[in-house]
């Protein structure tokens, strides 16, 4: 009997807003995104029996399940990390449906930095514990600050300068100009503007950091046999990997065994071995881009460029649709579409494989999705269209 793969049958999002512009709550945006994904799938809310999100989701799975009137929640799961989990949430949902723990699992994320503490601001509650106690007193607090020395060391190791990751931001903004949903639609970015932008924390400029947004996105995971029985179109989750290298306990762990990496060295090998698919077979890349230099590291570790050469590839235009050979973050992603903690990148990957992207890669058949380069927990997966 052929393997019954997990697949994605629907994707959707809320209206995307800039930070603090949403007139409705994060709860409402989460519900909007889930309903949009179900509508796109042609699946009723009464069929949903599983929900998956990230840790620290403000509308956690049981709360959203209750709010949406889910009759019986059979699979409730939160990925232990943050934006490193854009593939992991799909993989966890996939494990649930292929083992029969649940039939219809919706992965979602709502992040409203206008309604919740901003990731870039200090939260002053309680005591700095665990590894945080050895970072915070020195002013290493926000995700950008904690990732910055890692990025700096990557630049140093590869003989690059502080502006090496400019092509990552420029590609995202380029793609956003074609995507009316993108918050930066109609706001093109050129290299001079990038170089003149302020530092958030060296080596990250303003445009290297995710766009603070009020936004939600979702997608629906089922078994291919379940989808086929209902005549639903599906995108296969071919395979994926998740986890961390040794001694990565918090973002920016100073004593990670592999420090100046995106975290994909081992995972990429496993991903390609497990799926029998390699970089030449992949048509489009969605790599969580917060923050630029770590995307370069990820593109190298995932096998698309030799070590130390992704910056050069980007500067040549390789990441830009329609002419670049490595179209990257084709909706505008975290930097220029909206920061939905990366889940918008999964939505875009699925649209690419259905021929529905605003920057449609001709004949796109397989997409690579990679979450959280440089974060302590990361994940990656391969999606394939037109197989079921």
């Amino acid at each position, binding site marked *: 009997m052929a393997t019954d793969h997990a697949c994605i049958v629907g994707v959707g999002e809320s209206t995307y807003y800039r930070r603090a512009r949403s007139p409705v709550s994060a709860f409402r945006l989460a519900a909007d995104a889930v309903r949009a994904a179900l509508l796109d799938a042609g699946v009723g809310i009464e069929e949903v029996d599983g929900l998956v999100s990230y840790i620290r989701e403000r509308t956690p799975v049981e709360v959203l399940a209750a709010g949406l009137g889910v009759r019986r929640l059979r699979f409730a799961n939160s990925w232990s990390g943050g934006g490193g989990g854009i593939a992991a949430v799909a993989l966890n949902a996939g494990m649930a449906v292929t083992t029969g723990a649940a039939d219809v699992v919706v992965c979602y994320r709502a992040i409203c930095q206008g309604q919740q503490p901003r990731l870039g*601001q200090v939260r002053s509650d309680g005591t700095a514990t665990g590894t945080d106690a050895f970072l*915070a007193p*020195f*002013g290493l607090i926000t995700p950008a600050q904690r990732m910055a020395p890692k990025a700096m060391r990557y630049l140093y190791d590869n003989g690059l300068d502080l502006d090496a990751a400019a092509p990552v931001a420029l590609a995202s903004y380029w793609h956003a100009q074609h995507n009316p949903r993108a918050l930066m639609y109609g706001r093109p970015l050129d290299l001079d503007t990038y170089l003149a932008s*302020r530092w*958030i924390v060296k080596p990250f400029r303003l445009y290297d950091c995710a766009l603070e947004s009020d936004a939600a996105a979702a997608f629906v995971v089922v078994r291919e046999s379940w989808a086929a029985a209902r005549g639903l179109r599906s995108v296969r989750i071919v395979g994926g990997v998740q986890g961390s290298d040794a001694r990565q306990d918090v973002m920016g762990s100073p*004593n990670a065994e592999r420090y100046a990496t995106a975290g994909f060295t081992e995972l990429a090998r496993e991903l390609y071995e497990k799926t029998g698919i390699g970089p030449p077979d992949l048509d489009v890349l969605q790599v969580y881009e917060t923050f630029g230099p770590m995307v370069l590291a990820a593109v190298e570790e995932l096998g698309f460029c030799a070590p130390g050469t992704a910056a050069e590839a980007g500067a040549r235009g390789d990441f830009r649709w329609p002419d670049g050979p490595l179209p990257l973050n084709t909706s505008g992603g975290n930097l220029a579409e909206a920061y939905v903690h990366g889940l918008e990148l999964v939505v875009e990957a699925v649209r690419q494989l259905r021929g529905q992207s605003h920057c449609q890669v001709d004949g796109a058949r397989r997409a690579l999705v990679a979450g959280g380069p440089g974060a302590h927990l990361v994940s990656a997966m391969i999606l394939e269209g037109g197989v079921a």
Partner: protein
Amino acid sequence: MTGTYLPHGWPDGLPDPDLDDLDAGDWWLECARRRLCMQRCSACGTVRFPPRPLCHRCLGPSWWWQEVGPGGEIFSVCEPHYPAHPSLRDRPPYLVVLVTPDGSGGERLVGNLVNGPGDPNDPADQVDLLGLIGRRVNCQWEPVADRYTLPQWRLA
């Protein structure tokens, strides 16, 4: 030294490190005595930081404080500009370094570089951050009020 590198008690309302942590509290006591220490596994000799109840190599529960430094080498660096807290709004950027102290077996500490090449308080584009990597530093103790003492770093 009087005063602290970052604003005194910085930032206002930021949590202090947990000095009572059962795994790490003693490290802060050693800092108060101005002894820069890392744990050394009694069984396999692996040096580790931050303080943990077990050796990550051999899972041995016994350890002793090995003094490291006071010299070391900058492994990486960053320079926060965006004020992550209101108390930083009118402050210049600051330098955060990862330092490999001598005798640490490669284990690293986070700290601040309290004297840059040129003053980091000057318009910040002046500091060659990549050029700091690999530079030698020495530990400089910085008491924060009477609550705890931070190991900071000066260029050698």
